[in-house]
Each structure stands twice: as C-alpha cells, then as structure tokens.
C-alpha cells in the first residue's frame, strides 16, 4: 500500500452559468520518501489538485468523485476535526509566495510555535527550542533574531526557508509544495531546490512538487505527472519523460525549454492556448493544439476529437493519447498556422 493514493479524483467548481471541471479522473500514488512532480501550464488544475488532497479547496470547489487515501485512510470523508490532525502534522504544505503565506501581523516565532502547539502538548520553551532547531536545519542565519522578526523584515528567499522549516516542524510524512520557487529570484531558486531535495531525502519525507517549470521539476523529483486541462496526460519516471517524452503535449513542453533546443533552432512554443476549464474540447482536450490529430496524409483522426484517450503504457510511462504507439514511427506533416 502506497503512502498516498489518489483514485479517479474529480473536482468541480459550480459557477452561476457553467461548471468548471478543474480536475478529472486523476489517479496516482506516492510512496514513502518519494519525490513526485506535477507539471503543466498555468490553469491546468495543479493547485486545485494539491489543495484538494487536504480538502482545502476554496469555494465553491468540491470533490465530486474519487478518493484520496493517506496510509489507507480515506480523507475525502473525514470531518474537519479529523482533517485538522493531519494538516500541517502528517501532511504539510508550502505555498507559492512566501511573503503572502506568513501572517504579516505575527512574528516568525509566534507562527512556528503555534504550529507546534496545534498538534502537540508542549511547553512554550520546548516549542521554541524545536523551532530554532528547524530554522538552523534550513540554514537560516541567526535564528534567535529571526524568531522575533515579522515576515516583511525578511527577504523572499529567507521567508521561504522559514516556510520550509514550518513544514518540517512536526516531521510530516508528506510535504506538498505548490510552486515553491516561482516567486523567488532565479539565483535563490536553486538554493531552495537543493534544500528541499536534501531535507526530504534526509528525513524520508514524501514530496509533491508542483511547477509549471520543467527545470525545477527535473532537478527535484523522481517521478512526474504531466497535467493538461485537468487531466493527467503522461505519468512516469522524471528522467525518462524528460529524455523521451511520449505525449505530444509533453514533447511540446520539452521543446519549449531553451536549453533543450539546439543552436539556430527556434524555440518551439506549443501553438495556441490551453482552454478554459469551463470549456474543455471534446475528445482529447489537447487536440486543437496537437499536430498529430492529422494523419501524415492530412486526414483528421476521428478518435482525437471524439473519444477521451485512455492511459496506455509507452516508453517508461503511462500516456493518454490514442496514437502514442504510432506517433513514434510517423513523421508529422508540417503545421500551418493554427
């Protein structure tokens, strides 16, 4: 049994006129100590998926179907009180912008101590000692001084270290990090990535990292989910996906990376935009942007516009594309402007 199992998860936001289906039929598992990445363009439903794991969806989102099991225990039906024992304690979260994540009116120390006291019966002094120890672990300089400071007195990178320290405070089994480096300077990103990798390895913490940036994910994770329009389109070992992407969308993402492009070759951006999750195209959601929806002879492949592709094994991954096994051998026609 995996530490965390997500099964056919379905999340919707009923709005006045239509319904947003932010996550559809998502299944994956996380083993103890494993580092898993979730990648996809902005608006793919990554954050919604992350928050739903702890039932922290904002209104009017709700879990319309599927299961989330943590250590075999179903989370979607737990009461708030039961969930509270898991949140921050067994499963911790790291948010995108450290400066808005920490409460501006409370000191760093107060926020660390309250986290500890929410889950353990310990004295103020003991809590303080643990918190200072964790601050040292994330290499925060002069932690005693930081302890008394307010978030705005710290830099973004330092704040994110504090947030990581808070995530580690209660020795969780899983840390979910939603774009942990996106709001930071490029120079600091690498440090934070190294820190997360090192600490999760050391404490055997399972990590779920979300990012729209394949470079970040590539460095941090062992396994990878690629999301498009609320669905997982490819899932497998990170290295294999980056070296040999199977799904046309993943290939597009990788071709768009600067360092993957050979000299003099232009950056291959995927044409078009991801659809709004309120109006996802029928069939394969990616088809309006996919050059392979046509046969090499230029005929439209009916399956692409009519049926949602099932995940099949290809290369080292599971890939949701009707034609993935044939694509490898076919040469696509050159795309005209879409």
């Amino acid at each position: 049994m995996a530490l965390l199992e997500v099964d056919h998860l379905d999340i919707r936001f009923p709005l006045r006129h239509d319904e947003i289906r932010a996550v559809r039929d998502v299944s994956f598992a996380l083993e103890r100590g494993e580092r898993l990445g979730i990648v996809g363009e902005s608006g793919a439903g990554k954050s919604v998926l992350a928050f739903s794991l702890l039932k922290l969806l904002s209104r009017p989102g709700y879990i319309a179907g599927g299961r989330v099991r943590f250590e075999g225990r179903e989370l979607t039906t737990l009461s708030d009180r039961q969930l509270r024992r898991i949140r921050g304690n067994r499963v911790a979260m790291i948010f995108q912008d450290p400066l808005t994540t920490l409460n501006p009116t409370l000191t760093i120390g107060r926020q660390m101590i309250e986290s500890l006291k929410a889950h353990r019966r310990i004295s103020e002094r003991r809590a303080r000692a643990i918190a200072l120890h964790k601050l040292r672990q994330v290499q925060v300089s002069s932690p005693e001084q930081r302890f008394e400071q307010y978030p705005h007195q710290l830099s973004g990178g330092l704040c994110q270290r504090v947030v990581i320290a808070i995530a580690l405070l209660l020795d969780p089994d899983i840390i979910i990090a939603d774009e942990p480096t996106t709001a930071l300077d490029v120079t600091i990103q690498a440090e934070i990535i190294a820190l997360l990798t090192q600490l999760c390895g050391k404490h055997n913490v399972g990590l779920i990292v979300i990012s729209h940036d394949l470079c970040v994910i590539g460095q941090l994770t062992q396994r990878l989910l690629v999301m498009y329009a609320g669905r997982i389109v490819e899932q497998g070992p990170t290295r294999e996906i980056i070296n040999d992407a199977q799904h046309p969308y993943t290939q597009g993402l990788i071709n768009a990376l600067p360092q993957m492009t050979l000299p003099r070759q232009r950056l291959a951006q995927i044409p078009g935009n991801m659809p709004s999750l309120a109006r996802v195209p029928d069939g394969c959601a990616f088809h309006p942007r996919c050059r392979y929806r046509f046969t090499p002879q230029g005929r439209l492949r009916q399956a692409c516009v009519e049926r949602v592709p099932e995940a099949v094994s290809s290369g080292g991954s599971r890939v949701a594309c009707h034609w993935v096994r044939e694509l490898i051998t076919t040469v696509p026609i050159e795309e005209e402007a879409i």
Partner: protein
Amino acid sequence: MIPFLIRRLCQAVLVMFIISMIGFAIQGGLGDPVQQMLGPAATEAEATALRHSLGLDAPLWAQYLDFANDALHLDFGRSYFFHEPALSVIARYLPATLELVAASAVLTLLLSVPMGVFCAIRPRSWLSQTLMGLSVIGISVPVFLTAMVLIQVFSIGIQVTLFPADTGWGHWLNQLFSIEGGMPAYGRGNPVHVLGVWYTNFATLQGILYLLLPAFSLALVMLPLFVRLIHAEMLEVLESDYVKYARARGLRPSRIYFLHALKNTLLPVVTLGGVQIGTLVAYTLLTETVFQWPGAGLMFLDAIERADMPLIVAYLMVVGLLFVVINTLVDLLYRLLNPRITLSGRAA
C-alpha cells in the same frame, strides 16, 4: 518612535492653532457680549467702558494674542450665565459626555466585532443575512429616530391589546408580546463619587442602567458602519494566502478567525474608529438632548441659546483638543498593531 511623536506633536499644535483661530473668530463674530451683559437699558458710554475693559477695542491681532495667551493659561473667561470660569463649567459637564462616549464606543466594539466576524464566516445563515440587511437600514436612520424608538420600546414600553383580553389565552398572548419598558431614559440618575474626585455612572448598577439607553442609541450611529466594515475586511482577509496557510497548518478555526484574520481586519477598523470618535462626540449633542443627559453637549446647546460666548469657545477648544489627543492615540495604536509601519513613521 521619538521622531514620530515629535511630528505628531507639531501637527497637533498646528491643528490647535487653527481651532483657536476659529474659536477666536466665533468669539468676535457671534452676538454682542456687551449688550448681553449689560441688557437693553445700558447707555452707550457704559457699553464703551465695558468694551474697553474687556479689551474689545484693541486691534484684531492683539485681541487674538490676548485670547491665545489666555487659552494657553487655560483661561477662557467667566461664563456669563454660571458666573464662574468657563473651564470649570466644562470640567463639571464633560465627564458625563466622556462616559457616554466611552460606553457607546465599548458597546460598538463589543457588538460590531462578533457581528462582523460572524457575518463573514457564516455568510449564508439567516442571522448574517438579517444583520447585514439591518446594517444597511441602520446607516441611513437618523439618530433621534432610533433614540425615540428605543425610548418607546424600552422605557415607555409597548402594551399589546391585539388579542381579546377577556379570554385567558388572549390575555396571555397580549402579555407575551407586550414589553414592560421601565428603562431610565431621562438624565443621569444618581452618579456617585469614586475616590473623591470621579463622579461616575459606572460604579453602580443603577448608574449603568441610566447610561444604557443613551449609550446604546449613540452606539447605533456607529454600529452599522463598523459591522459592514469588519464584515467586508474579514471577507477579504479570509481569502488571503495566510489564512489558507493557517488552515493548511491545522490550526483551530477559533484561532484562525480571532487571531490570524481579526488582527489584520482590525487595522482599518482602528483607523475608522479614530475618525468616528469625533463624529461620536458630535452626535452627543443630539443624544444628550433626547435623553436630557447632563453632559457637555447639552451644556453647549444651552450656552448657544444664551449666547454664553466664553462657554461656547471653551467647549470648542476643549473638544478640539480632545480630538487631537484621541487621533494621536489612535495613530499610535495603529502603528502598534501594524508591524509593517515602523514607529519612525516610514513604511518599512
């Protein structure tokens, strides 16, 4: 901290200077004290003599300097009516007003915070909807109307005779819907001396009873505004990352609402509160009239009627000073609540 205090002090002095100019202008421009003092039968010579003895024939700037100098020595002249220093008259009446303002400020805070927070965290409950609806109405209802209604309901009482009184159940229903009333709504009752100097309504149950209706009707001026502000701020704060993060850390809802969210909500509330305390003092004029509360407001209106110039000017100056002091304190409080503003006055 020190530069901030110095700057605030300079501002306070400037504001007091302007207020003193207004006070001075009123003194010279409203009614003729000489005629008031001497009555219609006086001769022109008598009037000139009195004018000279009061310094009213000197040039304007000299008169102002005189006025300012006296004011700095807390001398606003003698009340024409009470025949004693204007400041002592005010000192006698002001505590009643301050007690009224303090009581209604406390009532406003005690009621608006729970109401605003409740409406924000339970937006769908019927109670929230009712409260928010009432707050819209409340903002536009004039204070004397609410005061009248309060007096009718809680002081005079309501006698329901809708049901046939000769049947047992009719009598019972009439009783059920009737309101006894009986709350004091006139004057201050019998305030008691505390520690020899403080003449107060707070020390006895009876005193508090007398304070209740006037204070509540004054509180109703602010309450709807505060409920709406706290509600709106709270809604915004509840959407913030740090509240979501607090939930993700497994903190208890009470801690999230009343520490994490409320602390950030209170910043604008404190600002509004500071501004509104001025309004509150202004509204004491109405409230004190309706309830015949023997405070400085009532005294001020009487003084206007009697053209008791020293008293009018002294009231304006004292209330002006009160504003300045309160606003400075509110500013300080705001800075203490908001760590992003350092006390030197610059945003960090």
